[in-house]
């Protein structure tokens, strides 16, 4: 069945047909027809942002907390270029987005028209795919295809650039096909059974196994997390995870090792280094994880499960590659394991588990607390304690506070931790929290922030006010770009070039100026009460938590070092640990 619609009406109709309920956007000349069509209906709610970068991060938070596609609508030129950071962020973290950008009319393309930019040219390398729709006949098909491409396979952002004359043009609208068949794009989701059987064989013989899990499990859907828990229980193997995979395995489980990588726990990194079987499920051997690559887990057989064939052997060679969706592969693994045994191998790998307990006993996350000043780690522990038992969604900005959140906040469920992993985008957390809250109106959503990052996108607090989204922004304010300062201490003789946050706003007044609530706390003794006040307030809150200014984020694998060369919290002088070769690394 088809009907005649304008391009703008088609956009709205296609959004509805793809199950879209919320769009994050900002109007402008080249998208006015679409805004007019949005205005005349009530099924799709539009969230007006303050800056297009905010819209993209909101859509990311929305997508990551729901598993659905996040939708962004922006105008041509600056609207599109402002969205580029969020699109790149979504590409690196495999977040499904559809970003519709307005474009100048086709007759003006290439003439340097007002608010014209080469949107498809600019976004080509920061999207999974992009389209310029020059003909109304292609519009409906392209939008449906964009949703399919964004959400399927390894998810990612897709841009649809629509010139203004196409938005006005009349054409036939076709509804999405039940199953989209694409000529050249057909991601493989089912892992090769023979390879999975080989993995099970390796697992049945391993003496020092470890699960190294990543964002692929979250992207696969909640079922994959359940299966991971089941497989870990069935085998008795310990589990560590990347930043992007936190929540897929419960932090309260005794098999949980904590996060691995540059700021991972000692037990997680030592287990990675000394294991004889590494089961990488949905992670990509990122440089934050591997450390020095020629010393990375030297004696292990590596099994790599990934939906993207290009992830295999990209950074670390796999002994056994299984290309497929984590959920499917885990399902098969659980099934095959059950055909062999019902008893976990805890007894057989006992020496390994004991070794891990010795590493765990080092307690690499310990820190010296204080009664005079709030330690950032303490602040996160108290926050976690205050929300214990509640279903809470955490977002973060980027920097020390992000790592402390990953280290000290216990995540129990998937889709509850939204953070910028691959791109490391400061300013991600506040808008992401807004997006999460749009999707989960009654949930508790907290952005664990730093005072430097939050200033990059804090105007979106005003968006939260406008749409009555009671996000809590918990700022660990140390008056420094803490991670930059830490690296200057490590590498540059503690010369803190431009990493001091000078002329900070009064965050309490800032919140009040935008119509929200501001709370400040600088006394550890008053922290619990202040956090309670934040949680009780029925509206957006900026919480200015004044913390120890020069605290370092430890443990740490310094750049250029291996997993077994970590800096532990008691290291007195960190400034001469990194050698010349490591200094050039990021």
């Amino acid at each position, binding site marked *: 069945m088809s009907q005649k619609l304008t391009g703008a009406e088609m956009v709205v109709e296609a959004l509805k047909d793809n199950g879209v309920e919320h769009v994050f956007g900002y109007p402008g000349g080249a998208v006015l027809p679409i805004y007019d069509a949005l205005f005349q209906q009530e099924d799709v709610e539009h969230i007006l942002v303050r800056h297009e970068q905010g819209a993209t991060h909101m859509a990311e938070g929305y997508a990551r907390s729901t598993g659905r596609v996040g939708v962004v609508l922006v105008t041509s030129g600056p609207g599109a270029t402002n969205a580029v950071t969020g699109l790149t962020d979504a590409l690196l973290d495999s977040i499904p987005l559809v970003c519709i950008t307005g474009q100048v009319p086709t007759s003006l393309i290439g003439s340097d028209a007002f608010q014209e930019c080469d949107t498809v040219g600019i976004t*080509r390398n920061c999207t999974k795919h992009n389209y310029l729709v020059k003909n109304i006949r292609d519009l409906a098909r392209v939008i449906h295809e964009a949703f399919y*491409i964004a959400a399927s396979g390894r998810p990612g952002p897709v841009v649809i650039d629509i010139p203004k004359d196409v938005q006005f043009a009349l054409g036939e609208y076709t509804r999405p096909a039940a199953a989209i068949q694409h000529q*050249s*794009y057909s991601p493989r989701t089912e892992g090769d059974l023979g390879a999975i059987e080989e993995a099970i064989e390796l697992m049945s013989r391993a003496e020092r196994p470890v699960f190294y899990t990543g964002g692929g499990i979250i992207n696969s859907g909640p079922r994959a997390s359940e299966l991971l828990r089941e497989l870990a229980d069935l085998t008795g193997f310990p589990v560590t995870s990347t930043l992007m995979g936190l929540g897929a395995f419960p932090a309260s489980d005794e098999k949980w090792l904590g996060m691995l990588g540059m700021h991972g726990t000692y037990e997680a990194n030592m287990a990675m280094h000394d294991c004889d079987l590494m089961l990488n499920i949905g992670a990509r051997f990122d440089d934050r994880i591997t450390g020095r690559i020629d010393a990375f*887990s030297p*004696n292990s*057989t590596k099994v790599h499960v990934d939906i993207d*064939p290009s992830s*295999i052997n990209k950074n670390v*060679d796999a002994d056994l590659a299984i290309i497929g969706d984590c959920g499917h592969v885990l399902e098969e693994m659980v099934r095959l394991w059950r055909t062999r045994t019902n008893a976990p191998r805890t007894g057989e790998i006992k020496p390994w588990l004991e070794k891990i307990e010795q590493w765990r006993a080092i307690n690499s996350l310990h820190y010296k607390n204080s009664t005079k000043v709030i330690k950032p780690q303490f602040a996160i522990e108290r926050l976690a304690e205050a929300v214990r038992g509640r279903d809470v969604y955490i977002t973060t900005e980027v920097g020390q506070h992000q790592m402390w959140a990953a280290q000290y906040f216990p995540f129990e469920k998937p889709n509850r931790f939204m953070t910028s992993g691959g791109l490391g985008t400061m300013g991600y957390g506040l808008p992401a929290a807004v997006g999460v809250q749009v999707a989960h109106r009654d949930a508790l959503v907290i952005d664990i922030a730093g005072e430097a990052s939050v200033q990059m996108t804090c105007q979106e607090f005003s968006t939260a006010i406008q749409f009555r989204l009671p996000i809590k922004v918990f700022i660990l304010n140390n008056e420094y770009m803490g991670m930059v300062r830490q690296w200057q201490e490590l590498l540059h003789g503690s010369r803190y070039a431009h990493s001091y946050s000078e002329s900070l706003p009064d965050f309490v007044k800032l919140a009040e100026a935008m119509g929200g609530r501001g709370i400040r706390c600088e006394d550890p003794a008053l922290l619990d009460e202040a956090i309670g006040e934040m949680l009780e307030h029925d509206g957006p809150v900026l919480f200015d938590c004044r913390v120890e200014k020069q605290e370092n984020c430890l443990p740490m694998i310094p750049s250029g070092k291996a997993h077994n060369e970590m800096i532990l919290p008691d290291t007195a002088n960190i400034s001469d640990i990194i050698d010349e070769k490591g200094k050039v690394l990021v």
Partner: protein
Amino acid sequence: MSPNLRPSGSAYFLTAVSNKKERHTLSVLVDNEPGILARIAGLFSARGYNIESLTVSETEHEQGLSRITVVTVASPKVLQQIKLQLERLIPVHRVHDLTAEGNPLERELALVKVAGEGENRVETLRLAEAFRAKVVDASTSSFVFEITGKTSKIEQFISLMVPLGLVEVVRTGLAAISRGPEGM
């Protein structure tokens, strides 16, 4: 268990031995849509891969498909990445490493302009004949030759023309196809 699967020890050290760069010819079947060439070229530049030669033209008109031939120089590990990264692009149907699959037929066309007088003109024509280069334009003081063949043959012809008055050269880049009855 497959025989190539080692019970212990990492593959990392075992395959790291082959870091030698090799020249490979890839054939890429793509949808002939606007921007496809920019996508391919952009991927190579963004990821730091090397392009020695790149040719593109629509080959299957009804289906709107183009064949792109890329010559690249990389280590085996990077070559594998290039192939997989190309396959990630949505409009890319298939990527074949023709060099890895066998000894492909490779041809290039060049137009070579040579100017000169007297003995040099005779020598120029004699060499052109030996190389089966065709005269496609002539004046009293110049020739333009059309020459087809492997890259090495064209290189050789050009170098012989240098002392005889070579003015300029244009080349199409490599077109390559696999031998035998199988198509891509």
